């Protein structure tokens, strides 16, 4: 019912509809209504399928663990408690992981974005001799790579194992991002601008730093966000290249707690079955809270980032 009322007024909106009315048969009108109803139903169901699990985790994270365990929590939290959150904030592993993630994210993003912007600008310049060959060198790596093992051995031979560089450098430049940046420069920096700057005596460096970069703010924003998200969420490089707990980023800490879970993480040891079960329920509660806390920063930032990401896909689509 609600679906129908929602779609009804909109159908009369476009002016062209008046033209269509003449030729539209009754059957077509029915077909269009059916289409609208099906489309909106499918989309509402999809939204529910995406939102409900997340919503459930949020309410479960503040509910009495026993109520969650017994399946009494469905739409609203029950017996509100913040114990899960208190436990997280008291857990030094989380704080330590968070600190590491922030360091890796800032450094990694700085390295990646700088390298990509510099390289992509050079590759966007049609007057750079050898451009095609150099571009090919980059593109080849998209379709063939040496694989996990040799990458690991190279990082080991470089003496980077268990250092911050192992999580910052091996994945620094994504060729896809480089291509997006290159086509952004190709389409937004007019040749005439460069020629005019050259007349005025600006060399390539000066032109790049004084003219190109200030004109490329949307691209820079996009690149920063892509890399912040990627670093914030990555765990695998840390898993294979780091072996010191104190250097683990948040995601690896989360993996150890959420997935390779152990009851000892709640700090309760020994005791009878009753307290063991209770400890386990608290552990579950902590997990819900942990999921919320670790995803929250990006979810809050999402509305701000969306504009840039949509723009980014459009830059990519221009290619």
């Amino acid at each position, binding site marked *: 019912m609600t679906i129908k009322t929602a779609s009804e007024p909109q159908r009369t909106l476009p002016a062209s509809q008046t033209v269509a009315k003449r030729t539209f048969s009754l059957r077509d009108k029915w077909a269009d209504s059916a*289409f609208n109803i099906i489309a909106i139903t499918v989309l509402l169901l999809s939204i529910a399928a995406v939102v409900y699990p997340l919503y459930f985790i949020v309410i479960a994270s503040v509910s009495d663990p026993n109520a969650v365990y017994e399946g009494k929590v469905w739409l609203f939290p029950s017996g509100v408690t913040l114990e899960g959150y208190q436990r997280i904030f008291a857990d030094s592993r989380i704080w330590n992981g968070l600190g590491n993630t922030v360091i890796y994210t800032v450094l990694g993003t700085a390295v990646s974005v700088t*390298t990509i912007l510099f*390289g992509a600008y050079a590759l966007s310049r049609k007057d750079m001799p050898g451009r095609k060959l150099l571009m090919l060198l980059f593109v080849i790596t998209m379709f063939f790579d*040496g694989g996990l*093992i040799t990458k690991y*051995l190279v990082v080991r031979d470089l003496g980077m194992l268990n250092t911050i560089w192992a999580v910052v450098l091996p994945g620094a430049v994504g060729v896809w991002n480089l291509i997006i940046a290159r086509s952004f420069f*190709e389409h937004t920096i007019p040749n005439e601008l460069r020629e005019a700057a050259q007349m005025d005596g600006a060399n*390539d460096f000066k032109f*790049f730093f004084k003219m190109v970069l200030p004109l490329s703010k949307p691209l820079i924003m996009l690149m920063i966000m892509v890399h912040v998200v990627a670093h914030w969420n990555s765990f695998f490089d840390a898993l294979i290249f780091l072996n010191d707990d104190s250097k683990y980023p948040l995601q690896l800490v989360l993996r150890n707690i959420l997935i390779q879970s152990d009851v000892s993480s709640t700090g309760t040891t020994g005791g009878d079955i009753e307290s063991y079960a209770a400890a386990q329920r608290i552990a579950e509660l902590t997990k819900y809270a942990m999921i919320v806390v670790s995803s929250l920063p990006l979810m809050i930032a999402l509305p701000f980032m969306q504009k840039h990401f949509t723009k980014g896909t459009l830059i990519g689509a221009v290619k």
Partner: protein
Amino acid sequence: MSRTITARRKSTPKPTAANPRKPVATRLKRVLRAWQLYVLLTPALVYILIFKYWPMYGVQIAFRNYNPVDGFTGSPWVGLQHFVRFVNSYQFGQVLGNTLWIAVLGLLVAFPIPIILALLVNQLQSERFKKFTQTVLYSPAFISTVVVVGIMFVLLSPRSGLVNNAIQLAGGEPVFFMGSAEWFRPIYVISDVWQNAGFAMIVYLAALAGIDPALHDAAKVDGANKLQRVRHIDLPGIMPVITVLFILAIGNLLNVGFEKALLMQTNLNLSTSEIIQTYVYHAGLQQAQFSYSAAIGLFNSILNLALLLTFNWVARKANQATLW
């Protein structure tokens, strides 16, 4: 790619384009004049040489018995021994089968869904609902793989999980989802759709926005209903994008979601969850069989490349958009 090539041809002065063998001196001068551009390119170039081409060069250990002292080039040559061992091992059929299963199932289910969603969202007339749907559907892409798998573990937990609570409420028996081999593939694919369909949809929406509205108006005048317009205007309009993304998906067929498979693995679901790349990880990095696992990785890369080239070729034969 072709666009940049034609653009270049136009911008280059005629004599140089016609005569590629120009005097060395002029060439050198042009290179020297662009030295600042090469400086800008250097970090990226050094990066791919060290982290892409050096490992590629090191792939030769797949044909050697690697030891750290002799390194990539000095270790004794053993030819195809590691490949033969892999193909003859009892895991070969299982690991390859699991990889293909997940890849094909993923492609059949996860590839069309974003297209369908985009076609539906594009038909919405309320801009606000459109935007809302878009934002909600693509938000899970920003949740990390670790957390998504963590969500699976808590929601699917046999004792306290939401799903099993619902099953029990409906009178069923609880299922140990994460600990059963049969459930690995469905969970893997469903969670993939859950997390990535919304984000993949954005590209198609961008392509749909590029379709000339006049086509729709004309079709409306001719009395075409919505479904007909979606089928005959929208779908053909985004076909080039679909083809290119399909070829890319094929080229990555055997690489997809390795991290998620690794995270979802438990001792109980190994018989379906062990795929080529997780096997490489276990054999190579956990058991230090570097040469053997490098051989398996190379086998995987070559298979991927072959698939990509084949489908690109097929697409060209069928006069569809291609990668190059």
